[in-house]
């Protein structure tokens, strides 16, 4: 079931104005339709312009193969989230709350909110578009992950593996780069309680 969690302002770079976006827990058919009809075709078209997955980072489309609909429908262990603005799905996130545990020494083994997948709509992405539209969808989703982590008494702890094209994004947000994970073949990032507090304080300022 889809639940409205709250609202966030996204900057419309085209107009310079902030617009109210809604954050939802759970996806419905409208989100799946947006993904299948609006996101997926342009992501796949853009990804096809690059000779391989590594170079697809230049177009910010290394996630073009992610099956949002299949994952959201088939895996009940995942919790799903959407950002909607201007009648369209602007961002999606899928988190695992059960089977991942913290790796940073100070919180090693404790529960955390693991972000399995997170994406902004293609038209919002720098490098994908010359004129990306909304700014703030990724941060709105990460703030939701931190808030959820707090609500579940995980104290804001969040972990994720980053696509190479996104690695430079997580450090400035307060994540610790825990290094290359040989199993997932990706860099692993994690946020402590203190980093989560700072992250939310920065968003509220």
């Amino acid at each position, binding site marked *: 079931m889809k*639940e409205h969690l709250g609202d966030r302002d996204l900057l419309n770079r085209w107009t310079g104005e902030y617009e109210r976006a809604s954050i939802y*827990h759970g996806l419905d058919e409208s989100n799946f339709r947006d993904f299948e009809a609006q996101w997926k075709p342009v992501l796949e078209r853009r990804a096809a312009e690059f000779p391989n997955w590594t170079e697809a980072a230049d177009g910010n489309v290394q996630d073009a193969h992610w099956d949002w609909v299949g994952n959201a429908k088939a*895996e*009940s*262990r995942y919790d799903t989230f959407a950002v909607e603005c201007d009648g369209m799905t602007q961002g999606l996130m899928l988190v*695992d*709350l*059960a*089977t991942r545990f913290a790796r940073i020494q100070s919180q090693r083994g*404790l*529960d955390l909110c693991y972000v399995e997948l997170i994406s902004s709509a293609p038209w919002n992405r720098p490098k994908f578009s010359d004129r990306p539209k909304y700014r703030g969808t990724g941060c709105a989703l990460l703030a939701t992950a931190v808030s959820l982590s707090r*609500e*579940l*008494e*995980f*104290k804001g702890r969040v972990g994720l593996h980053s696509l190479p094209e996104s690695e430079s994004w997580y450090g400035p947000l307060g994540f610790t780069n825990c290094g290359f994970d040989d199993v997932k073949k990706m860099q692993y990032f994690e946020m402590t309680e203190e980093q989560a507090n700072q992250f939310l304080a920065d968003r509220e300022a």
Partner: protein
Amino acid sequence: MDRRQMTLMLSDKEMELLDQLSERRGMSKTALVRQALRLYQSVTERIDKGEKVFVEHPATKDKAELMVL
């Protein structure tokens, strides 16, 4: 999130375990029970799909399969 209330009856031993785990993991007893439920659901779902869940010894790499009936 909407919540519903229920009464949970535990033995002394189970309550002691709940106390210990909630202290160790820095969570309330309620949060710990919720998290245990999520973990149990996830393991059950994977096994239902034919996947295997193992625990591995860090040094010997010996694996023991976790069975959920």
